């Protein structure tokens, strides 16, 4: 199940084992049979580190979703709440505890906060008069969850909003804690680079933590050479553009949650004999997507235009493999063929799934509207007509396309013009409010605060300079056999990844001027290593850099970093960490003000 975590340069299974162990420890603290009541949001992330079998080994007999009123009946000794530290969840827990039937045998209550205990929440439980009912109140520091062999995420959906809108540093503190855990497992990271206010904060907290807990100084040989901390607001542009890699498009269209995607079932109906024409399953088809699936690992990071040819090649290979059975004459040959079958079946199943997904995506990408939208995005990113009201956006508003789509485009235009002219901004705002409702004024204000949609300051547009210096727009992009990271957006090279690339070679000193145009400080820190742990690099051995995106990262950016890792003369391999895996839609959504 988790073997794919150990495929990469850094064995992330070590981290997974460590967090699993901590979970077991907690469960055993509550002796006897137990039922877990889940904050539903947590089941996804927990699914990446543990299965029900693990919980069962520790006498978890029942599991429920956290809901108001009374808890379902369960003949167990312990009831354990697994929750995020949220006030609204505390109210539900209090309701559960208070409506517990006094006649039935008493059950012990416990609460496990993920990833941190919160004094505010405990205060709320106290106000509700139930704090004393809990025997164990603990925290489970699931800060960084391993998603794949080279990918870690905190899955904190509100991190960007908290950091850049509310200036609350709690998630930065968690990020720093997660990094301390990583260092405890994989050795101290000797070099830290960073760009942005939040990056600076995280580095400060890390350094402070190290100073205050000298015990954390460990004797593990460092696996990571460099840590690069990047603020999302250094590159607000990239997530707004439509991702054009296979995995990126799956995420844009269907939304990947905790490495699972739900797809419309029609294309996946198994056409077995007699069943054709019968009722199709109406439930969405759920698939797990990670590098454990060989075919997916091969195509996930490709530009979507290069996926079709791989799939058809694979199809030929697999059908040829199945045809082999006609050549098998002797018993030995037949036996050998038969022994291969389970794996051929798996490969065929995988191919069938991805062919279906590719078909679904193609239906979208070949639509006229997708093409028009992409054209506008690409015009903006290459610097064309960013300073006037765009016809396509206007049309989309008139036809009342989804608001998030409009906001993504308008924000993209604003970012590509270093802010919009006041007249243009006012026009868009007015159109949006009249068509979608005045209450969205609050959302527009949030976007302005976050720097996504704002008036141009001082009439200066820095974007062309940044674009040219960092070569963000490449006209001659090769989607099939890429030679540059710009293939992930069919022309646009993600700014964030360009910064990582330039840091590795030739170093940031070469782009000082541009770095100054981007928000926040850039810095370098060194962490001393004991003499015995200093690395002597073998000839040709790649460096390992951990890139931490504070405020979220897209699949296309991950693809671009993987592309750099695989470059023959690249010299650097990347492991990626983030506060949240996201795309433009989920990002904007997290900034929207909802009725409460």
């Amino acid at each position, binding site marked *: 199940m988790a073997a794919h975590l150990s495929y990469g340069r850094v064995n992330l299974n070590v981290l997974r084992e460590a967090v699993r162990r901590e979970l077991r420890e907690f469960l055993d603290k509550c002796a006897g049979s137990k039922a877990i009541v889940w904050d539903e949001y947590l089941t996804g992330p927990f699914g990446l580190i543990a*299965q029900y079998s693990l919980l069962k080994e520790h006498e978890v007999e029942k599991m429920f*979703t956290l809901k108001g009123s009374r808890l379902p009946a369960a003949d167990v000794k312990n009831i354990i709440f697994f929750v995020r530290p949220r006030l609204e969840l505390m109210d539900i827990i209090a309701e559960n505890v208070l409506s517990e039937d006094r006649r039935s045998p008493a059950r012990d209550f416990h609460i496990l906060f993920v990833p941190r205990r919160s004094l505010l929440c405990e205060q709320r439980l106290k106000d509700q008069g139930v704090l004393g009912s809990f025997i164990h109140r603990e925290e489970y*520091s699931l800060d960084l969850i391993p998603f794949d062999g080279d990918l870690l995420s905190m899955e904190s959906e509100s991190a960007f909003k908290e950091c850049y809108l*509310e200036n*609350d540093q709690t998630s930065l503190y968690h990020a720093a804690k997660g990094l301390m855990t990583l260092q405890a497992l994989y050795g101290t990271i000797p070099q830290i680079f960073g760009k942005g206010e939040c990056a600076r904060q995280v580095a400060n907290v890390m350094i402070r933590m190290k100073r205050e807990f000298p015990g954390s100084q460990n004797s593990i040989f460092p696996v990571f050479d460099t840590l690069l901390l990047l603020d999302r607001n250094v590159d607000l542009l990239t997530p707004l553009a439509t991702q054009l890699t296979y995995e990126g498009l799956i995420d844009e269209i269907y939304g990947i949650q905790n490495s699972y995607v739900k797809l419309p079932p029609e294309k996946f109906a198994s056409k077995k004999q007699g069943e054709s024409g019968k009722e199709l399953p109406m439930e969405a088809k*759920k698939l797990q997507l990670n590098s454990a699936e060989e075919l997916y690992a091969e195509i996930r990071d490709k530009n979507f235009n290069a996926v079709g040819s791989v799939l058809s090649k694979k199809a030929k290979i697999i059908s040829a493999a199945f045809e082999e059975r006609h050549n098998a004459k002797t018993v030995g040959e037949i036996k050998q063929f038969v022994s291969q079958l389970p794996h051929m079946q798996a490969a065929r199943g995988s191919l069938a799934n991805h062919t279906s997904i590719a078909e679904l995506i193609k239906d979208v990408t070949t639509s006229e509207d997708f093409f028009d939208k992409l054209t506008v995005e690409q015009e903006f990113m290459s610097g064309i007509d960013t300073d006037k009201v765009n016809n396509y956006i206007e049309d989309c508003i008139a036809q009342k396309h989804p608001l998030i789509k409009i906001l993504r485009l308008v924000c993209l235009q604003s970012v590509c013009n270093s802010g919009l002219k006041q007249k243009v901004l006012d026009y868009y705002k007015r159109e949006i*409010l009249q*068509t979608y409702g*005045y209450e969205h*004024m609050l959302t527009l204000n949030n976007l302005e605060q976050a720097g996504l949609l704002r008036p141009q300051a001082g009439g200066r547009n820095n974007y062309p300079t940044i674009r040219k210096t960092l070569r963000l727009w490449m006209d001659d992009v090769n989607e099939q056999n890429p030679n540059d990271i710009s293939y992930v957006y069919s022309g646009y090279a993600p700014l964030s990844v360009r910064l990582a690339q330039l840091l590795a070679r030739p170093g940031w000193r070469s782009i000082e001027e541009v770095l100054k145009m981007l928000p926040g400080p850039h810095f370098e820190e060194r962490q001393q290593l004991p003499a015995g742990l200093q690395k002597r690099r073998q000839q040709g051995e790649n460096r390992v850099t951990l890139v931490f995106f504070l405020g979220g990262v897209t699949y296309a950016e991950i693809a671009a970093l993987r592309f750099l890792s695989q470059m023959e003369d690249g010299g650097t391999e990347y492991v990626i960490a983030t506060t949240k895996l996201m795309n433009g839609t989920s990002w904007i959504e997290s900034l929207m003000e909802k009725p409460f």
Partner: protein
Amino acid sequence: MNRTKVDEEEYWHSSKFKAFTFDDDDDDELSQLKESKRAVNSLRDIVDDDDDDLERVSWSGEPVGSISWSIKETASSGGPTLEGREPLKTRNSLSSYPPLPKPASSYSLSSFFKGRSRIGSFQSLSDALSDVPPKNYAPELRRPKGEYKDYSSDWSLSDTVRRLQKGKVCSLERFRSLQDKLQLLEEAVSIHDGNVITAVLIFLKRTLSKEILFRELEVRQVALRHLIHFLKEIGDQKMLLDLFRYLDRTEELALSQYQEHLSIQDPEKRKEFLKSCIGLPFSVEDAAHVQDHYTLLERQIIIEVNDRHLESSGQTEIFRKHPRKASILNMPLVTTLFYSCFYHYTEPEGTFSSPINLKKTFKIPDKQYVLTALAARAKLRAWQDVDALFTTKNWLGYTKKRAPIGFHRVVEILHKNTAPVQVLQEYIRLVEDVDTKLNLATKFKCHDVVIETYRDLKDRQQLLAYRCKVDKASAEEEKIDSILSSTQIRWKN
């Protein structure tokens, strides 16, 4: 798929197999297969000796035994009946071959911790790990425990903050003087732990007067931001507004107050609340939007009362024919305009529900107005209204057709509302760009327009080609033939 083939497939699917290895024999003919051999071989790595055995996947893709799957399972069944009970859902499972036998678990980390429920009796790390095979080595993440019992009421400032950081109970009451309290806050801020900062802020909020708290936080920006976030979180709107007022952050104050309207359900109360927002210190643009928001809701309430009455009395034809699907309350402006173009199109400008009145009151641009009116009238198939929308008279009394949105858009909207060909072609003819015109006419099968356009272009080849697309012996074919045989036209090809 014939029957024998199916049987054969079934056989391949249902056989049980051992793990296999490929021989490394060279096979020139099937060099492609080698790739898949490698591929297939590498698949074995997935089914390795992890303690979670080869997963089975239910139709919905939830791995059988995953947490979210199990919640449904254990909640619906009487007890933990997972073992051996294959849920019906897996009938369609992707992997139709049985799971490989689970490798005998060679270790169980849990055994090291069993029976150790007493708090504080932790064995040392090395004790706990001594039996663990090296590959399962997973270092202890937590800091050493054992500070549970040492309670004292006399913690130093930094000790107190440390204890809070570790989530321990700790009374702050002994920090009495303002200076002590502020030092406590500064210490909390310096460790960047939002949880601790909030805890101290709760304490300060309870023990300091507002004025002093605000005054001290004004010079402590980090703590101030945490307080604002905290007040939003607990919904202490009153204190939040007081704080913004104190800090003279007027726009935030206004927006924050305005936001409250979202939680007011009753339309009358919401309207009154919005009215109270009008004077707030918004930016100039936002002030205008809030004013409009109020005016719109005020209108909607009047229209709603009126129309509900009209609808229930059953006297008005339009409401009988097209019952309202939802109330108009709290709908956006453009939706309201659509509604009024749909139900109240012919009303005089003086009424609140007339479209023209809405247009004037909210200064709706021409483009927006025409688009909305067109969509509404087309939906009702009121083609004369549509016609009137684009007809202008000049001072000589001549009529002329003009569309601020471009006639190609008009055509598309009409088509979306299933306008008949006669109506469609009238507007396609008005499209200026010839290519666009031809495209639209072809797409919507307005043969006459296509034929006339090719005639005007003197394009005989295209006309001949189009002749094959129309029905045999139809009026269109006849029309093409008569044009082709005309001697008046000087064809260009």
